[in-house]
């Protein structure tokens, strides 16, 4: 899962990125509205944390342009504008959730998890497929109830596939959602991660759909 953090205050941006990375997300940070709009339009994110008072372009304008361009990524607005009138404007402007600063990091993580889960049509907080269970709350994976140790990249590949259970996900799509902007990308390494996941979770767990990509779970 890959998240875009749009926040112009450097220290807060670092804190958010740190907490999100520890929670198992690939994170990109941008500090102004124009860059945010561009990144949102060109990169595939699973969620966005969006500040509103931004240099160059206001966060609400960024959000409106994304929605006009048909970008449906779940957006959590995280802003100092805390009045109810402003909250209504944010939600009517296309936000999926709205939190006022100051906030508790745990709550941001919980709300982001819920947004990603809902956008994937999942009802329960824990994702389960066969004997494998993934809990985004603790970034933990179990096989038949026994904890399995995964690296950050392995976890992101598994998490993305399980959030899109039953759908074939291409290698390109996986690559886009497990790496942040500034990390070296190599679609061949996706094969490596899939191989390692199969060793840890069972060879049959991830199916290769020839020429199309990978799938966890039965096709709907």
């Amino acid at each position, binding site marked *: 899962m890959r998240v875009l953090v749009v926040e112009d*205050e450097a*220290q*807060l941006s670092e*804190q958010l990125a740190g*907490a999100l990375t520890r929670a198992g997300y690939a994170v990109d940070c941008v500090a102004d509205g124009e860059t945010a709009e561009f990144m949102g339009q060109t990169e595939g994110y699973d969620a966005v944390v969006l500040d509103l*008072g931004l240099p160059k372009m206001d966060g609400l304008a960024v959000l409106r342009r994304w929605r006009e361009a048909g970008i449906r990524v779940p957006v959590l607005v995280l802003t*100092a*504008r*805390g*009045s*109810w*009138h402003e*909250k*209504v404007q*944010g*939600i*009517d402007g296309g*936000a*999926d*959730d*709205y939190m*006022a*600063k*100051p*906030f*508790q*990091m*745990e709550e941001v993580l919980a709300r982001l998890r*819920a947004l990603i889960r*809902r956008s994937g049509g999942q009802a329960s907080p824990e994702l389960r497929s066969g004997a494998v269970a993934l809990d985004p709350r603790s970034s933990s994976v179990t096989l038949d109830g026994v904890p399995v140790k995964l690296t950050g990249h392995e976890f992101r590949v598994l998490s993305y596939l399980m959030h899109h259970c039953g759908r074939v996900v291409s290698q390109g799509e996986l690559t886009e959602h497990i790496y942040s902007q500034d990390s070296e990308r190599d679609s061949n390494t996706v094969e490596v991660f899939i191989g390692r996941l199969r060793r840890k979770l069972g060879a049959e767990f991830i199916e290769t759909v020839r020429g199309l990509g990978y799938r966890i779970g039965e096709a709907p």
Partner: protein
Amino acid sequence: MKWMESLRARVILGVLLGAAGLTGMLHLVMLTQVPRRPMVLHLGHGLEVIVAAGLLVAGLLGLRSGLSPFTRLRARLAAVHTGEARRLDGAYPTEVQPLVNDLNALLDRRDEMVSRAMAKAGDLAHGLKTPLAVLNHEAERAEAAGQVELAAAIRQQVEKMRRQMDYHLAHARAAASGADGGASCSVASSAEGLARTLLRLHAGRGLAIDVEVAPAHSVRCSREDLDEMLGNLLDNACKWAKSRVTLGSAASNSGIWITVEDDGPGLDSALMEQVLQRGVRADQAAPGSGFGLAIVRDLAELHGGSIHLSPGPAGGLRASLVLPAA
């Protein structure tokens, strides 16, 4: 008649008419008072009395109407004072109009200064909230490093500061919108926007928010302030509700009654009083004791309204917000 718009013309005309009437009256008095030629009053004199009295009355009326713009001006100023009007409307005599224009310019400037001060207050609060968010996260780090007491102390102070800012910002906004008189807001439009928003914010809990508000019901306050009051009430109801929140409105002599009910566990009557206790400022209320409700009470009172809590029919809490009708 262009010249009638002039205050000077009206006063001069009034004085001339009055003087002519007075002269006529004096003439008659002289006639009757001269001893050498005792006069017998005949029809002509009666006519003179009528004409002179008519002139006198017309003169007085002319003077009165000449000065009436000042009475109107006072009434308009009073309307600005109570917030019914924002500027001094209407046409005034040419001598008075410049004064009215100056007063309007002064009022515009006051509005401009209020909104600039408001923007500054907002900037100040917004500027502080991001550092507070950073501080909050530092507390989490301190906690992770085993400094639990330090973390708790930071969090508590951050929360206090947040309340101070929210409280004073809401007050400043309400005071500023009071200066911008004549505000009116439809209860239905505010309620519908908030219901949409709260359903999103409480998504995943399966709540239903029923809005049963008459489209004709409007209250005398700005949209921002009504949103703040209703938002706090609805958010509180959503927090406690099991499955349903109902928002209704009714008109009465005391104003528009807006009720928010939930089907939650309700509130102990002693706590109800405590939450809305007079003299307890919202920013000093103890944590968890309905900070939002206290803000609503303060805002409602600023707008000449009130708030009441009672047990709801579904077993939960019913909050009634009463505001002057627009």
